């Protein structure tokens, strides 16, 4: 009986492949032609390495601002935030409204004067100017390895997704996307990546707005969605409003699906992780460094924050709708194709997760596990007719490609300036470094492809690597904050702090476990002293421990070592740098005015969805 049932579910949940028409393919093809065209058109303007790696610092703020958020609007965001929306509900918006936005305002107002003003060409290079060579090397190497692997993981996810949804070949879809990204970044460098990121930004917006419109209309607007999610919440053992309120149930980890309480959320996600990513990751900071003036560089993250604070509606809502769509009698007959009968086993139109043998996965309690990563793609197939479906899939492809190009342009810059020029071949001609940048684009993409195949064949290796990256990243913001705002911080202090922070993260992860998990990749390998209610809670607290360790060790070691003369720190530290003068600009172009607007909007959104 049990075996027969399992086989039956396998049949039901196994997606049959959606068929595309000539029009859908035509739209995808036209998109390819345009992104390649941008690369070709920009080719003749790439004369120096500064043109290639920093767009000659000549891009206007609105373009760098949109690229700032678009480079990050990769697959992890579009697919991952939809998945979290399906799993956690509107609380997923904390990644934006307590996470990204305050950090983006901070980097624009307080940190950009040093990144842009120091004329550093990369984030690791700023560390070299402010601290010393070894701190730069640690950051450059870990960043280069990380970008290659994260772009590889995202390629792997793309190949798998298009294979599952459309029956495209796994190798074929990865190779085509990689070849196109390679072609346009090779030809037009960072400018080409940035221009295409803006184009991809508009495509993603235009591709997902109709999805949210149709989905909301189908479930009866926000009121209908709340009602349906309310009964789902009760069935899952939470208060009725748990999926539709961001803060109300954050008092205790057990009363919200995220499994985190407000203090861990604000400190771990809001402070350490978000500031660590948005303020120190070269992938995004590079976009601001390409701006045409100091004030444009400072406005870059602030302009980006305006669409960013509205993204939850675009990427989280589809996931929330997916878990309840098609579950009422009033809903239209399901679309022919993939998820026609999925509700029998899945939830809404989210299918169950299948293991390697094609059978539904079950958790410890024996309940089937949903494949949340398919929530947003399933929505596209469910609601989009031929034609619009082509646009939706193009938007999905655009998100994969903008993320990939972001990684590749950041990688080739750090490789060429911070590793090749610094340690392998200093003092060569600019033309040589321009050539190296193009060459690094080729092998960066080659390495990412290799990483994608590693991810495909050894799942555990990727888990270990992602863990290591989490450890490496967590303490970074403490180093930058002390470097920029405390003139006494020294190179030895920064390096010791970073190393101690990474170790602190590893130790904390090693002594803690999320509830219900076995010791191993999830933690507990040094013995289980702390049990967290969820994996996210563990992640947030690991970050807090890493940050605090780095902060304290950097201060102690700095005080014990010889400070650098103040004359060397001008332009690198807050108290020794003249304030950028923004008074000459019209009110709405002043960074501070923009910051006030962005923060008020975010506060309002938090209150509306409290």
């Amino acid at each position, binding site marked *: 009986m049990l075996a027969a049932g399992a086989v039956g579910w396998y049949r039901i949940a196994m997606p049959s492949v959606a068929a595309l028409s000539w029009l859908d393919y035509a739209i995808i093809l036209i998109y390819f032609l345009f992104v390649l065209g941008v690369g070709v058109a920009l080719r003749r*303007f790439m004369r120096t390495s500064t043109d290639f790696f920093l767009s000659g610092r000549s891009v206007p703020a609105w373009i760098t601002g949109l690229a700032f958020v678009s480079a990050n609007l990769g697959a992890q965001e579009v697919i991952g935030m939809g998945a979290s929306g399906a799993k956690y509900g509107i609380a997923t918006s904390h990644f934006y409204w307590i996470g990204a936005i305050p950090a983006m305002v901070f980097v624009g107002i307080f940190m950009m004067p040093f990144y842009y003003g120091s004329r550093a060409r990369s984030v690791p290079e700023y560390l070299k100017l402010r601290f010393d060579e070894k701190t730069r090397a640690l950051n450059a190497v870990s960043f280069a390895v990380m970008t290659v692997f994260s772009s590889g993981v995202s390629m792997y996810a793309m190949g798998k997704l298009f294979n599952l949804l459309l029956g495209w070949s796994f190798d074929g879809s990865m190779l085509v996307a990689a070849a196109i990204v390679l072609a346009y970044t090779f030809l037009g460098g960072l400018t080409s990546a940035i221009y295409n990121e803006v184009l991809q930004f508009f495509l993603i917006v235009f591709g997902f707005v109709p999805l949210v419109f149709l989905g909301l209309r189908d479930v009866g607007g926000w009121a209908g969605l709340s009602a349906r999610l309310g009964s789902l919440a009760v069935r899952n053992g939470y208060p009725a409003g748990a999926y539709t309120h961001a803060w109300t149930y954050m008092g205790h980890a057990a009363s919200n699906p995220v499994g985190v309480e407000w203090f861990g959320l604000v400190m771990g996600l809001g402070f350490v992780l978000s500031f660590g990513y948005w303020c120190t990751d070269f992938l995004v900071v590079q976009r601001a460094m390409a701006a045409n003036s100091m004030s444009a560089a400072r406005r870059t993250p602030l302009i980006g924050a305006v669409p960013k604070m509205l993204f939850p509606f675009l990427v989280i809502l589809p996931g929330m709708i997916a878990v309840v769509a098609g579950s009422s009698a009033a809903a239209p007959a399901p679309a022919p194709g993939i998820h026609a009968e999925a509700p029998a086993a899945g939830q809404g139109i989210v299918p169950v997760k299948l293991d390697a043998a094609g059978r539904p996965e079950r958790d410890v309690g024996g309940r089937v596990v949903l494949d949340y990563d398919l929530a947003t793609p399933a929505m596209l197939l469910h609601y989009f007719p031929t034609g619009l479906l082509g646009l939706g899939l193009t938007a999905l492809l655009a998100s994969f490609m903008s993320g990939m190009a972001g990684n590749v342009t950041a990688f080739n810059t750090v490789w060429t300036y911070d590793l090749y020029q610094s340690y392998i071949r200093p003092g060569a001609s600019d033309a040589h470094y321009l050539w190296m940048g193009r060459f690094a684009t080729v092998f960066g993409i080659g390495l990412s492809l290799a990483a994608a195949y590693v991810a495909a064949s050894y799942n555990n290796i990727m888990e270990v690597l992602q863990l290591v990256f989490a450890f490496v990243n967590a303490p970074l913001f403490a180093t930058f904050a002390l470097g920029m705002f405390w003139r006494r911080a020294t190179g030895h202090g920064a390096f010791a702090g970073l190393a101690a922070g990474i170790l602190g993260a590893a130790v904390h992860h090693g002594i803690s476990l999320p509830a219900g998990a076995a010791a191993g990749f999830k933690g507990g390998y040094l013995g289980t002293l702390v049990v967290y209610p969820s994996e996210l809670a563990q992640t947030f607290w690991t970050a807090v421990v890493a940050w605090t360790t780095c902060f304290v060790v950097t201060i102690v070691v700095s005080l014990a070592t010889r400070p650098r003369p103040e004359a060397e720190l001008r332009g690198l530290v807050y108290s020794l740098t003249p304030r950028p003068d923004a008074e000459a600009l019209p009110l709405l172009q002043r960074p501070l005015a923009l910051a006030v607007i962005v923060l008020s909007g975010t506060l309002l959104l938090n209150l509306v969805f409290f």
Partner: protein
Amino acid sequence: MSATGGLDIRIPIGGLFTVVGALLAGYGARTAGDATIYARSLSINMNLWWGSAMLLFGAVLLGFAWKRGKG
């Protein structure tokens, strides 16, 4: 000339949206009233409406680019 000076970004974006918008709107106009195609989109001819919106957006971008090119 700078690394960006030669290409107005509104041209490729406007061009892409104009072409894709026109294709979608044209297909939508031809398939108007086809109940099977639009059963998924709640019986709304999304191709026609959304295609027209994209066409308009693309045309506005191209218009601005053209105006700057002349001035």
